[in-house]
């Protein structure tokens, strides 16, 4: 019986550990440690050469001190010396120290690699294993460079001991994961695959992890592993519980190896060879049969081991998705687990059933468990189990059970944990729309959603309900009535006020016949909420009021009075004041005809996919890039909807249909009634996305205080604020780049692949012409190819000229090109330099990927230089929608349901340059409590990771 006697080993170490444990306080512990460190240091520095034992003991003490959480900055050399000892115990401590405290000191790495090399060629299996374990534990690139060639040889050599083979296989796996480019299997492939046939089960267990990893990367090269894996699995599955002796665990033959074999098969489609396939189906049936047999032991270890195999088999069955019989059997088995007393099994059954629900063969079978799952949602104590139940309900929902499921989810929402509410809301909204047969049910559901969980209802959800109501005239009256009733509640959520304001403004007339909801009652109801709402909602309400004046002339006097009150017409918020002034004017000077035309009912929205659905689709993968593009468009349009009610009040002669839709939402004074200098650039304000609203106003305030520019013939140095200006355009493409008393520069830009086109609009804000107007783009020839068309040298007072700039990205870059503008105004030379808002992220192509792919790629980019990370304080609010809009604006795809923590965001994209494409992964972890973010970028190019990280860190 092997056992460690308590007194063996190093006495000095044991004494030291006891001392530490006996310390009464942290201070005493630190004192004791410092004493020991001083002692060890003096021993290492002393003239007397230390013997191996002492060296081992001191190194081991240092290690212990390090593991307690203290820094260790010496002893590395002594540890390296131990590596060349002939004694196992000394060598072991040396390797342990190196593995735990690896230090990239180049001198040491050379010595360590040397020692490893000696041990690998020692033919002593114990030493070889120590060396291999060290490589496997450290896994550095230097080690891969030194040993990636040697290890496959050791792995497949005929005379290598089994235990060494096991270590070599996993050592190679670690090197492959860390530096795939350095591990070339080539000639070894077939011999590695044949390790699946090895006599020694331990060798197979270790080798299969390596083979699975390699197969998932190069399925074709390794496809011979399928038949070998099937026959190995078949032998295990059909063996009696005692056949495998050492490898039987609680009466289950080789559970871990079985799982690994089943996992390997999931890298491939079903075997084409009929005989192999038959054998595999037989195995899967046997595994399912065994689940029904009475247990051979009451121990939980027995059932866990057995079920581990069962769940893996079910994963494989789902992966193949081609055997209806097996799928239904799997579903029935999981159904039994749904009511099992083990929480683990209930959890895993819910999780596994979720994937079964999406197979056409088992969808119906899954649906039969609806009551059990609903019950789980209500009664499970562990929130993660409830979460799985909610996921499963969502997955099993179809037209036949949508009403029941949506009702259950809604009632669960009232008590749901905060952590999962937002996701639940999204799911309910999607299901309600997807399976709505009558739209009054849909309207009820969404209004309920807002009532129950208003804070968690994202903008998309309420935009969408309005779109649908506008487009379906059969539901408009009902919607008006319902929303009117919902607004009666003394405390209702702001989102409800938004929906209410919008719908009553459009369709209030449909319920005005009822004296209980007469026009004035409607107005008073809405206005009673006004003072409780935020600025954007108030703006929306003001638009609803002007619509009321048109719908119900009898409310005109009341509403005009409200608009005329100081709190509106002199509101400190520009947007509100603007609306109040314009609406008041409009209502008093326009004839009823004009008013009716201007404030006509909103035209139907073009039918298109819901943005919430698009979100759902995105996570489903292929073809998703196009969805992504549409989504971008949609956000713009949805936003139009937000403020677009008063769209027609802007009589500006802008030709772009998208621009006039934007109407009052933009921060710029867009107005036909009160032309001002600011309205020159109406058409460049087609900025969408919630982030823009607040930014716009600040821009103006900030820019008007820009300092006067230098007057010299040479291009002026860039304005001190040009970096800040640049940062404003990282996540958006359109807006006002610059403004001073004379000049306003607006930008519109679009990017495709590695090409970009930018429209610059120079507006002369004065009444005097600019002469010798001239612009140049400077710099960056190696990185960007920039073509500009020259502009007319004369810009009339009040006029606007446009300039097109074509940009080609040659390779990744850091600094933005400079835009220099020179002109004479009343004889004085104006000379302004700005940074052209071209940043590397503009050349992102969004990339959709499933969670598994994401993590795989993430891991592949694990070298320290490929990663850039920043932890920083939030400088704006941490609103989810704003964050999402910014991340989308960055140009990457925002991947939903990838990060297990729903608070986090992950994105993926490829930067397209002429020279190369750089794949880029991003993770943003907000910490709302601390108001901090951690941002991590990984890409195949260090400069890109760093630059994107720097750019984005300024955005939040």
């Amino acid at each position, binding site marked *: 019986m092997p056992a460690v006697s308590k007194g063996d080993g190093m006495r000095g170490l044991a004494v030291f550990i006891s001392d530490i444990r006996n310390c009464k306080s942290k201070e005493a512990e630190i004192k004791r440690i410092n004493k020991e460190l001083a002692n060890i240091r003096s021993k290492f520095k002393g003239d007397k050469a230390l013997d191996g034992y002492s060296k081992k003991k001191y190194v081991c003490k240092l290690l212990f001190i390090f593991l307690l959480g203290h820094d260790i900055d010496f002893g590395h050399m002594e540890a390296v010396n131990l590596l060349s000892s002939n004694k196992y115990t000394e060598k072991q401590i040396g390797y342990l120290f190196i593995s735990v405290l690896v230090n990239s000191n180049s001198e040491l790495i050379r010595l360590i690699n040397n020692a490893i090399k000696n041990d690998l060629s020692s033919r002593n299996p114990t030493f070889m294993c120590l060396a291999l374990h060290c490589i496997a534990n450290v896994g550095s690139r230097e080690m891969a460079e030194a040993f990636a060639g040697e290890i496959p040889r050791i792995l497949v050599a005929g005379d290598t001991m089994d235990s060494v083979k096991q270590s070599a296989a996993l050592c190679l796996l670690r090197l492959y994961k860390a530096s795939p480019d350095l591990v070339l299997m080539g000639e070894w492939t077939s011999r590695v695959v044949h390790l699946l046939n090895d006599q020694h089960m331990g060798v197979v267990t270790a080798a299969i992890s390596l083979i699975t990893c390699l197969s998932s990367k190069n399925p074709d090269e390794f496809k011979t592993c399928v038949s070998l894996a099937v026959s190995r699995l078949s032998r295990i599955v059909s063996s009696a519980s005692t056949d495998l002796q050492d490898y039987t665990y609680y009466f289950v033959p080789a559970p871990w190896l079985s799982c690994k074999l089943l996992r390997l098969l999931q890298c491939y489609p079903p075997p084409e060879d009929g005989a192999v396939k038959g054998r595999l189906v037989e195995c899967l049936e046997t595994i399912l049969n065994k689940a029904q047999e009475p247990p051979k032991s009451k121990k939980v270890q027995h059932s866990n081991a057995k079920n*581990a195999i069962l769940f893996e088999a079910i994963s494989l069955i789902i992966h193949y998705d081609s055997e209806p019989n097996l799928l239904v059997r799997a579903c029935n088995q999981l159904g039994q687990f749904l009511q099992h007393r083990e929480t683990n099994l209930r959890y895993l059954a819910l999780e596994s059933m979720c994937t079964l629900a999406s197979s056409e063969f088992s969808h119906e079978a899954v649906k039969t468990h609806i009551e059990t799952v609903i019950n789980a949602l209500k009664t499970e104590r562990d929130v993660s189990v409830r979460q799985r139940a909610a996921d499963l309900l969502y997955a099993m929902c179809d037209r036949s059970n949508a009403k029941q499921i949506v009702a259950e989810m809604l009632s669960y929402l009232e008590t749901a944990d905060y952590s999962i509410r937002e996701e639940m809301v999204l799911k309910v909204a999607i299901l309600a729309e997807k399976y709505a047969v009558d739209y009054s049910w849909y309207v009820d559901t969404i209004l309920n959603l807002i009532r129950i969980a208003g804070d968690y209802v994202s903008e998309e959800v309420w935009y969408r309900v309005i779109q649908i109501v506008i487009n379906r005239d059969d539901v408009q009256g009902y919607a008006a009535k319902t929303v009117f009733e919902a607004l009666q509640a003394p405390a209702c959520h702001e989102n409800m006020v938004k929906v209410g304001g919008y719908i009553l403004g459009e369709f209030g007339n449909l319920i005005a016949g009822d004296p209980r909801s007469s026009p004035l009652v409607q107005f008073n109801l809405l206005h009673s909420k006004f003072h409780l709402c935020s600025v954007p909602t108030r703006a929306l309400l003001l638009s609803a009021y002007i619509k009321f004046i048109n719908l119900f002339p009898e409310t005109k006097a009341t509403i005009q009075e409200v608009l005329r009150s100081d709190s509106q017409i002199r509101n400190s918020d520009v947007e509100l004041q603007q609306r109040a002034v314009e609406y008041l004017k409009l209502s008093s000077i326009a004839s009823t005809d004009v008013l009716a035309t201007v404030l006509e009912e909103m035209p139907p929205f073009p039918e298109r996919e819901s943005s919430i659905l698009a979100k759902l689709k995105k996570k489903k993968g292929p073809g998703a890039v196009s969805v992504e593009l549409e989504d971008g468009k949609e956000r713009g349009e949805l936003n139009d909807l937000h403020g677009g009610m008063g769209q027609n009040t802007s009589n500006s002669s802008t030709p772009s249909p998208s621009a006039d839709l934007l109407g009052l939402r933009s921060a710029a004074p867009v107005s036909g009634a009160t032309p001002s200098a600011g309205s020159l650039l109406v058409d460049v304000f087609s900025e969408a996305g919630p982030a823009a609203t607040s930014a716009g106003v600040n821009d103006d305030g900030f820019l008007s205080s820009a300092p006067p520019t230098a007057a010299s013939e040479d291009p002026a140095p860039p304005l001190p604020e040009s970096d800040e200006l640049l940062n404003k355009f990282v996540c958006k493409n359109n807006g006002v780049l610059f403004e001073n008393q004379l000049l306003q520069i607006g930008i519109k830009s679009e990017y495709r692949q590695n090409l970009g086109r930018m429209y610059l609009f120079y507006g002369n804000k004065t009444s005097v012409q600019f002469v010798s107007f001239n612009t140049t783009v400077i710099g960056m020839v190696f990185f960007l190819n920039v073509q500009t068309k020259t502009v007319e040298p004369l810009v009339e007072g009040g006029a606007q000229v446009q300039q097109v700039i074509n940009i080609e990205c040659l390779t990744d870059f850091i600094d933005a090109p400079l835009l220099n503008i020179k002109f004479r105004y009343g004889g004085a030379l104006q000379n302004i330099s700005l940074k052209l808002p071209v940043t590397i992220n503009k050349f992102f192509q969004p990339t959709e990927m499933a969670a598994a792919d994401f993590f795989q790629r993430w891991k592949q980019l694990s070298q320290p230089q490929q990663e850039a990370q920043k932890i920083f304080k939030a400088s704006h609010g941490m609103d989810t929608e704003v964050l999402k809009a910014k991340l989308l604006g960055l140009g990457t795809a925002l991947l939903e349901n990838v990060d*297990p923590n729903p608070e986090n965001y992950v994105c993926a994209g490829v930067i397209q340059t002429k020279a190369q494409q750089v794949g880029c992964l991003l993770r943003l972890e907000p910490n709302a409590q601390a108001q901090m973010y951690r941002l991590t970028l990984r890409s195949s190019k260090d400069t890109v990771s760093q630059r994107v990280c720097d750019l984005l860190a300024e955005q939040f």
Partner: protein
Amino acid sequence: KWYMQFDDDEKQKLIEEVHAVVTVRDAKHTNFVEFRNFKIIYRRYAGLYFCICVDVTDNNLAYLEGIHNFVEVLNEYFHNVCELDLVFNFYKVYTVVDEMFLAGEIRETSQTKVLKQLLMLQSLE
């Protein structure tokens, strides 16, 4: 024990986070917790928690039993293992781990084979 690259501060933070999410769970909860992009499979033995952090797609029960298999080996090796054994012999525990789990994967599952190997190593100087 780390199978991926982290710097020391990050390691310390991870340890604290794992501690925080695992120790608050009660016995009726599952033995699985989602954690960052991974999941933690844990098992409690008296006052000691053994935790493994694995990919979200990995087999929960297989790792749950992997922990138990490991603990049974420790128990044999140290004769009714207790926390103190693990503290005083921390450097031997590393050896046991490496025998059973390497590069973040399962290396050997046979208790007999692992114990035989440990006994052999024990006899070496």
